[in-house]
């Protein structure tokens, strides 16, 4: 079967993706290198929280390729996909592929945890205290600063993996995954 050009990613999902990328990167850079007063970082975090809530809802009510049940598959399918992954041909996959799905879930979980730890963090500087830090014990709000730091490392690792895999698809498998996420249109083959 020949791959066909179809409208895969709906506009809301594409907007979600690029907004999330923007706010996560902004939050990360502000967190590491931004001014001492982190209110911009905080608002980036709130934006990420809103986007995550949207994605959760969209995963149940959105168009087919956006739904969790569409791309969350069993280990068998993942293994089968992984076996053919290094062939130098485009995947023409109609959505998140079975392995990419893992990455999506990992990203969403880590970001949700990062939002949570940020909300309850108290770095003891009296200006960047998380809005919910008062709702937990002092020990928790202090430990949360450590988790938030760890989360930043995990997010960096996931983003590097994400970008690396996209480059791998682009230059090894000769499949552009970026343009579909911009336009919505992708060459796909539905033969399974």
């Amino acid at each position, binding site marked *: 079967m020949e791959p066909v050009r179809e409208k895969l990613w709906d506009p809301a999902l594409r907007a979600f993706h690029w907004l999330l990328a923007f706010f996560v990167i902004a939050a990360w850079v502000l967190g590491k290198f931004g*001014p*001492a*007063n982190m209110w911009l970082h905080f608002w980036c975090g709130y934006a990420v929280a809103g986007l995550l809530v949207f994605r959760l809802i969209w995963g149940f009510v959105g168009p087919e390729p956006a739904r969790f049940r569409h791309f969350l598959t069993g280990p068998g399918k993942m293994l089968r996909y992984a076996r053919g992954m290094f062939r130098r041909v485009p995947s023409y996959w109609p959505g998140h592929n079975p392995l990419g799905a893992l990455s999506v879930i990992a990203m969403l979980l880590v970001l949700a945890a990062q939002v949570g730890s940020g909300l309850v963090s108290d*770095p*003891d*500087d*009296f*200006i*960047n*205290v998380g809005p919910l830090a008062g709702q937990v014990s002092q020990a928790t709000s202090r*430990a949360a*600063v*450590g988790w938030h*730091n760890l989360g930043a490392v995990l997010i960096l690792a996931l983003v590097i993996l994400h970008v690396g895999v996209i480059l791998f698809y682009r230059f090894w498998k000769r499949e552009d995954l970026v343009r579909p996420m911009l336009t919505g249109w992708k060459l796909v083959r539905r033969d399974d």
Partner: protein
Amino acid sequence: MRLILAAAFAVTPALALAQDDSAVQDALKARQGYMAAISANMGPLAAMAKGDVAYDEAQAVFHANNLAALGNYEVEMHFLPDTAQGQVEGSHALPKLWDNLDDVRAKHEDFKVAAAAAPEGVKGGQAQVGAVVQSLGGTCKACHDNYRAK
């Protein structure tokens, strides 16, 4: 200044040898008490800045004066060698603090300058307190980010 601190550190090991554990405990007590004192005075100012507590100039100046006094205190003397987290129980100071004493000194100097300006700075209203808390809090963060265990 460097010379004084160098001299202070030259004397310190001799004391540390004499009664190692009690010197370390006293050092932890002094430096953690210093942080607790900063915290206890920043707290009311931060609450005022946020509006959780009504602006009260006399009280703001009181806490700002305390912070200015703490700024003038050279707490570095209590960061004895080999008292980082992992080296002594109860320490939250990262070992790299000792590898960057010039930076630590500069950051404490920033706190000192910000704290010295606080007593005049907090006068005039809630917004003034806000600005002071911002400038002081920034100096807390600068050091905590790098040298305090998370």
